[in-house]
C-alpha cells in the first residue's frame, strides 16, 4: 500500500468512528437541553401497531390550519399549548412563535385557512420486540403520549412513549 493510500485510510477509518459518535452526541445533547413536551399520539395502523421494531405515529398536530400560503415541503410551525395532560396546537405559521413551538414540513400545498398535513420527524419510534409488545398491550387500555424534546428552532426529537391507563 502506498503512503498516500495509507494516509487516506488513516483519515477515513477514524472519520467512520467519529461520524456515528457525533450523531449520537448531537442527539443526546438535543435530548438533554431541549424543552420536554408530551404529545398525544396514535399509531397509524391500529391493527398492526409495531411493524418489526418500529411504530408509525400520528399526532393531533399532524394536521393543522395553515395561516399562510404553503407549498409542499415548506417549513411550518405550530405554537403548542398544554391542555388535558398533553400539548397541542392547530395554527400553522411560517416561524416558531413562543417557547413551545414545533416545526415541520408541509406534506402538500395549501391556501391560507386550509388544513395541511405536517411531518415533524417524530413519526417513527423504535423499540425492542419485548418493549414493543408491552406498548402494544398498553395501547389497548389507555392513551399514548410521545415525550418529545423541542429545540429553540422548533425541531423535535422523540424521547420515549408513555401510556396513560386513565387510572
Amino acid at each position, binding site marked *: 500500500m502506498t503512503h498516500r493510500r*495509507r494516509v487516506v485510510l488513516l483519515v477515513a477509518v477514524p472519520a*467512520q468512528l467519529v461520524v*456515528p459518535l457525533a450523531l449520537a452526541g448531537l442527539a443526546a445533547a438535543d435530548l438533554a437541553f431541549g424543552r420536554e413536551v408530551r404529545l398525544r399520539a396514535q399509531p397509524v395502523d391500529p391493527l398492526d401497531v409495531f411493524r418489526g421494531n418500529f411504530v408509525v405515529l400520528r399526532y393531533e398536530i399532524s394536521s393543522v390550519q395553515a395561516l399562510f400560503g404553503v407549498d409542499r415541503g415548506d417549513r411550518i410551525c405550530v405554537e403548542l399549548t398544554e391542555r388535558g395532560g398533553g400539548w397541542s396546537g392547530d395554527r400553522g405559521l411560517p416561524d416558531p412563535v413562543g417557547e413551545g413551538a414545533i416545526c415541520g414540513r408541509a406534506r402538500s400545498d395549501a391556501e391560507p385557512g386550509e388544513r395541511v398535513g405536517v411531518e415533524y420527524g417524530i413519526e*417513527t419510534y423504535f423499540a425492542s420486540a419485548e418493549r414493543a409488545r408491552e406498548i402494544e398491550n398498553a395501547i389497548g387500555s389507555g392513551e399514548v403520549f410521545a415525550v418529545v424534546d423541542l429545540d429553540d428552532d422548533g425541531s423535535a*426529537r422523540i424521547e420515549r412513549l408513555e401510556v396513560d391507563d386513565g387510572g
Partner: protein
Amino acid sequence: MAEPTFAERLGRESERWVAEGLITAEQAAVLRGRYEGAAAVREEPRGRAASALAVVGAAAVGFGVIGFLAANWEAMSHGLRLALITAAVGGAYAAGYELRDRTGRLPRVGEALYLLGVLLFGAALFLVGQMYNVEAHDPLALLIWAVAAAVVALAVRSPAVAVAALLIFTAWVGFEAGTALEDSGEDATALAVLAVLYGGALYGLGTVALERIRAAWLSETRLAVAGRRLGLLIAAAGLFVFTFSEASDELGSAGRSLDGWLQAALLLVAAVALASAVALALGARRSGRGEAAVFAVAVALLLIGVFAGGSGDLYALLFNLVFAALALGAILSGYLNDEPWLVNLGVALVAIDLVARYFDVFWSALPRSLGLILAGILVLAIAWGLERQRQRLLARMDA
C-alpha cells in the same frame, strides 16, 4: 509452516542447477515460467473460493452484530452500544489492514474484514438512528455510507468493497427516488423509468471508463466492471417493466404527476445516460455503436412517453422491440468483445422475455391446465435451445 509448492521447490532447485552448470539461467527462467503459470491457474479457483467464503463470513458477522445489538436493545446502555459499535468498526478495519496490507499473511480474509468494516459502519449509522429515534428512512445515511465505502475501496483497492460501495450508492438512488416519488403521490412507474436511465448510464460510463481510463485504481478495484454488470441488470429490469402495456400506459400520467425538480432530476439522469451512449458510440469498442443505439432509443422513448404520453399498447410494442434488441445485442456484444458474462446475461434475458410474452399473450386465452403444459414445454424448449447455443458460443469464444 506450509509445505512448499512445486513451483517454489523448482525455483530453489533451478538456482542450484544453474550454479552447478547443469542448465543456463535462461533455461531456468523458461522452466520456472512454465510451472508458475500452471501453479497460478491451479491456485486461482481455490483463491476465489477462499475469497467468496471470506466475504460470506464477513457479511454473516456484520449482520450477526447488527442482530445481536438489536436483540439486546434494552439490556445495554447507550454508551455500551456505542462503544461496541465503534470497537467493532475499528477492529474490523485494523484486522483487515494487519492481515492484508501490513503482513500480507491472509490477504483474502483481510479484504473480507475491510468489507466487514464497511458493513459495520453502515450498521452503526442506522443503529444510532434507531437509538435516538432519528427518522430511520432518511436516505442521506445511505449516501454517507456509500461515500465512506468508496473512499475505503479506493484506499485499499478492494473489489469486494468497491462492489459494496456501488450497491449502497444504487440503494441510495432508489431510496431517494422512492421517497421523493412517494411524497409526490407517484407510483412505481417513474421508478422503472429511473432504473433504465440510471442502469444505462452506469453501464455506459463503466464501459467507457474501462476503455479510456488506464489508471491503476480502476483496474484494481474493478469498479467499472461491477458498474457495467449492475447497470445492465438494472436497465434490463426497468425496461422489462415497460414491455407490458399496463405499465407503458402509466408513462404519461407518471410524467404529469412529477414535480418540477423531479422532472429536472429525471432529465439530468437521462442526459448522463445519453452522454455515456455518445461516448460509447465514439469509442473503439466493436459493439459500441449498437449498444449506444439501443440505450439512446430506450432513453428517447421513455422521455417521449413521460413528457408527451400516448398509447400504452404502442409503447409496449416498441419497448418489446428494444428489450429484444438489448437481450440479443448483449449476446452479440459478448461474442464480439469476448465477454462470456454478456452472453450469459443475454441468454437469460431472452429466456425471461419469451416466458413473459407467452404468459402475457396466450395465458388468458387457453384453459389453465393446457396453458401450464404448454408453458412447461416452452420453458424446457427454451432451456434446451439456449443451453446449446450458449455452449457453442462460449466454446467458439474459448477457441
